[in-house]
């Protein structure tokens, strides 16, 4: 599960690199935290 999490996180981070530089700088880190929250929630609900 951890490996899957890490792979998903890397994939999401790679996707974030497609965003415009300014937008990524402003919101990228926060978008990552939301992604992690959504992953955790999905894990809890199976």
């Amino acid at each position: 599960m951890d490996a899957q999490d890490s792979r998903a996180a890397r994939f999401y981070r790679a996707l974030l690199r497609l965003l415009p530089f300014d937008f990524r700088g402003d919101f990228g880190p926060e978008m990552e935290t939301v992604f992690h929250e959504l992953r955790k929630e999905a894990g809890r609900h199976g």
Partner: protein
Amino acid sequence: MALYDVVCDDRMSPLQEQNPLSAIQNNPEQHEPLTPAMFHVLLALAGDDLHGYAILKEVGLRTGGKVKLSTGTLYGIIKRLLADGLIVERRSRPADANDDERRRYYRLTPQGREVAAAEAERMDEVLSIARARNLLKKPRPA
């Protein structure tokens, strides 16, 4: 909650005063119609200051899961609302916030509240027409 804990305040900067859009922004009824997703974000923030994930949860909860915003959509909206001065980022975190420090909390500005209220009025007028044409199945709540 104190006003000093927001990044921006409601005073107009000289740059904003020169911007012709600011005249429109000062009159909420002249603000261009909000998209449904933007309106939902403003509604969520009308209740409390929230971070991004909490906004997603609040919108999902309040619409019974009918509206699900993606992360990309949410932050596109947040960027736009920040640029329009309808929301601001809180400078301080809530006292009981015991969470990831990368989280940022957003607050509705007085202008944002006025624009949301104007949008609600617009929708109410449309609903009145729909009601007059018997297009609504549910009776109006008291």
